[in-house]
């Protein structure tokens, strides 16, 4: 089982290294095949590990395999080790499964793109980073994977490095993530200081020291919030749409943004030891899901709408993890991976066919022209809106039901927020679908659509088809309260803190579906049948609640001001000035010394004779 785990971990890295070393000696297609094959191998190995684990008793499914001692300093020790347990197995399956499908899709999408090889090397590296993150057997390896995910995302978001906006978006993502990396590092320093170790077993320690426990949990939450694009570190995610569409799909579905949810579930002991911080995670999730849902209502870029929906869905997962419904959060993570990958990749087909256009105002009437894409997008959209029998229906509502089971005004509030989010989800998802696919083809579509090769190359179609089918049927794996294999599977790793009663479960399910359907109806009335005029979008939503402006004013401008002030007040007068003084002083000293050298032989001889005489006198006198 651990051997498969190691193969899963290193296959994508080998792929990335092969492509890099191969350089221009290997063809562009070959690079794509290497990346696809390496992640597929990883997926197969993960499946093997999963099957082996299925055959074991629940207690012996968790195995730590250490390759060697990686870091040793005093009494502190960390091995290069991987932890294969129920949670990491699920994550491995998602990362490699969805990841390899997305890379296979890229074969068609990136065809003819410059620097294809670099792209595929980065994609394989991205998958490796995420695998290191989920398989890492201690917190320091997790942090290493965490940082590498940040690096890979930076490289891929900025893939079109000739476009200034892409470079800026990459930098923004990196800086935002660095904030989270820093808070995590602080948490780890505290853990080393107070417990002397960074293995997962020290989470929740030192017992009783509330100050440390709270700061550690806050640090971890900071990292999770940054990586998962939750409030208040969410602004990088929509900008990250500057990368190629499969990269967005990879970031949103398989890797990266799900890392925060994984972290909270993996470190649940640390969060349960600091309940206030865990509540904060739930509140942040609830706020993010509402805010992102509202912003998604007015965005006009097809990828940005999907990006905000991701933010919103991750908000659900944070909400779930924050109230202790870990299995529900992970289950939603899985389902979200399927339907979000479907949506992004289908959107990629659209963008491809429309020569790179992403503005939904220019689209319309694509249903008849691109029936396959429409069906895939519809499947993803219905799953996103939580309409039965699509996958989102099975995974989203249990989280909301758990909020109700959490009880108290706090749980009730989260419950209301979750349901409001369900309504918003229905509206913004189907606003997108109705606008893009229904009606008569717009002038832009008639002019630019080219589907002479069908709807994209075969590699793009089969991957989307697989994902769309998964988005449609995968939800049946778990249907609380009737059958719950995922929850049972995860029970030993992350025992849930709340278990909703059957009445809460079913009631929430019914209300959730009704609200989702209501959302779709509203979207239909406005964007489908045009019965009502669309309300004028408010500025605060179009400007994304002014977070960019806020950070600009709070951090960017003061930093620039400080730098300018220091330059004018300190660097120019003190540093530059002192250097100028040193230069002038040296030159003056040299000029004075040069005067001693007359060039007259007698002067030199006189100097020698005189100093000799002085020495003689001194010698005699002292004696």
């Amino acid at each position, binding site marked *: 089982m651990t051997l498969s785990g190691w193969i899963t971990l290193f296959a994508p890295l080998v792929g990335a290294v092969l492509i890099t070393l191969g350089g221009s000696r290997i063809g562009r297609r070959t690079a794509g095949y290497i990346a696809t094959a390496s992640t597929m191998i990883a997926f197969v190995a993960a499946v093997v590990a999963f099957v082996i684990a299925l055959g074991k008793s629940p207690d012996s499914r968790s195995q730590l395999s250490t390759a060697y001692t990686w870091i040793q300093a005093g009494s502190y020790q960390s091995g290069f080790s991987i932890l294969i347990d129920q949670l990491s197995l699920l994550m491995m399956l998602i990362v490699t499964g969805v990841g390899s499908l997305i890379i296979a899709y890229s074969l068609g999408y990136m065809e003819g793109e410059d620097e294809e090889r670099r792209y595929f090397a980065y994609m394989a590296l991205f998958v490796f980073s995420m695998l290191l993150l989920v398989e890492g057997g201690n917190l320091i390896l997790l942090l290493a994977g965490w940082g590498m995910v940040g690096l890979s995302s930076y490289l891929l978001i900025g893939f079109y490095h000739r476009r200034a906006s892409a470079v800026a978006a990459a930098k923004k993502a990196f800086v935002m993530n660095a904030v989270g990396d820093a808070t995590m590092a602080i948490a780890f320093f505290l853990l080393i200081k107070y417990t002397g170790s960074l293995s997962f077993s020290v989470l929740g320690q030192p017992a009783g020291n509330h100050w440390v426990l709270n700061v550690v949990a806050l640090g971890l939450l900071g990292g999770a919030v940054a990586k998962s694009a939750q409030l208040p570190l969410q602004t990088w995610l929509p900008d990250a749409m500057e990368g190629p569409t499969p990269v967005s799909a990879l970031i949103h579905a398989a890797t990266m943004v799900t890392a925060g949810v994984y972290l909270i579930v993996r470190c649940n002991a640390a969060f349960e030891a600091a309940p206030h911080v865990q509540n904060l995670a739930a509140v942040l999730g609830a706020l993010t899901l509402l805010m992102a849902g509202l912003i998604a209502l007015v965005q006009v870029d097809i990828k940005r709408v999907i990006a905000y929906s991701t933010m919103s869905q991750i908000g659900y997962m944070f909400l779930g993890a924050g109230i202790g419904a870990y299995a529900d959060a992970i289950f939603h993570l899985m389902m979200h991976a399927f339907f979000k990958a479907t949506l992004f990749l289908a959107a990629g087909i659209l963008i491809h066919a429309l020569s790179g256009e992403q503005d939904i105002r220019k689209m319309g009437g694509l249903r008849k022209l691109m029936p396959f894409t429409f069906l895939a997008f519809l499947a993803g959209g219905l799953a996103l809106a939580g309409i039965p029998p699509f996958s989102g229906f099975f995974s989203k509502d249990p989280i909301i039901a758990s909020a109700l089971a959490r009880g108290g005004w706090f749980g009730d509030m989260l419950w209301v927020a979750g349901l409001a989010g369900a309504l918003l989800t229905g509206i913004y998802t189907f606003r997108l679908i109705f606008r893009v696919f229904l009606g008569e083809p717009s002038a832009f579509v008639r002019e630019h659509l080219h589907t002479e090769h069908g709807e994209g190359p075969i590699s793009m179609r089969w991957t989307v088809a697989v994902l769309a089918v998964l988005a449609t049927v995968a939800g049946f794996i778990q249907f609380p309260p009737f059958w719950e294999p995922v929850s049972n599977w995860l029970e030993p790793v992350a025992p849930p803190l709340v278990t909703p009663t059957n009445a809460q479960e079913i009631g929430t399910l019914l209300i959730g579906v009704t609200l989702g359907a209501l959302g779709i109806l509203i979207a239909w009335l406005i964007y489908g049948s045009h019965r009502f005029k669309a309300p004028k979008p408010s500025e605060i939503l179009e400007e994304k609640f002014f977070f960019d402006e806020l950070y600009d004013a709070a951090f960017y401008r003061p930093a620039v001001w400080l730098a300018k002030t220091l330059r004018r007040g300190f660097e120019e007068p003190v540093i530059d000035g002192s250097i100028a003084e040193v230069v002038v002083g040296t030159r003056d000293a040299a000029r004075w010394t*040069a005067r001693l*050298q*007359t*060039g*007259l*032989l*007698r002067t030199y*001889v006189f100097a020698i*004779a005189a100093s000799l005489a002085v020495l003689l006198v001194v010698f005699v006198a002292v004696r």
Partner: protein
Amino acid sequence: MNGPGIAWYLALAAFLFATGMLGVLLRRSPLIVLLSLELMLNGANLALIAFARQAGNLDGQIFALAVMAVAAAEVVVGLGLIVAMARKKLTLDVDKLSFLRG
């Protein structure tokens, strides 16, 4: 020990040295400067030999021989330089030969 005491020798050596030094300091012809330099060296040699005789060992005498060898070499180089300067029709005046001044 026969002959005059060491003080006489040292006095003569000091006189030779001082004469040579005055020549080096005051004269301008490089040829005379070179001659005066020889005088200084010989003054020093005399002192060395006088001390060697006083102390009754040969160290000083050998040192004097070494100084003579160096002096011979120095004269060869110095005269060579002077001849070269004369050939280039430079004025033979050490005060005017100051091209090496920085």
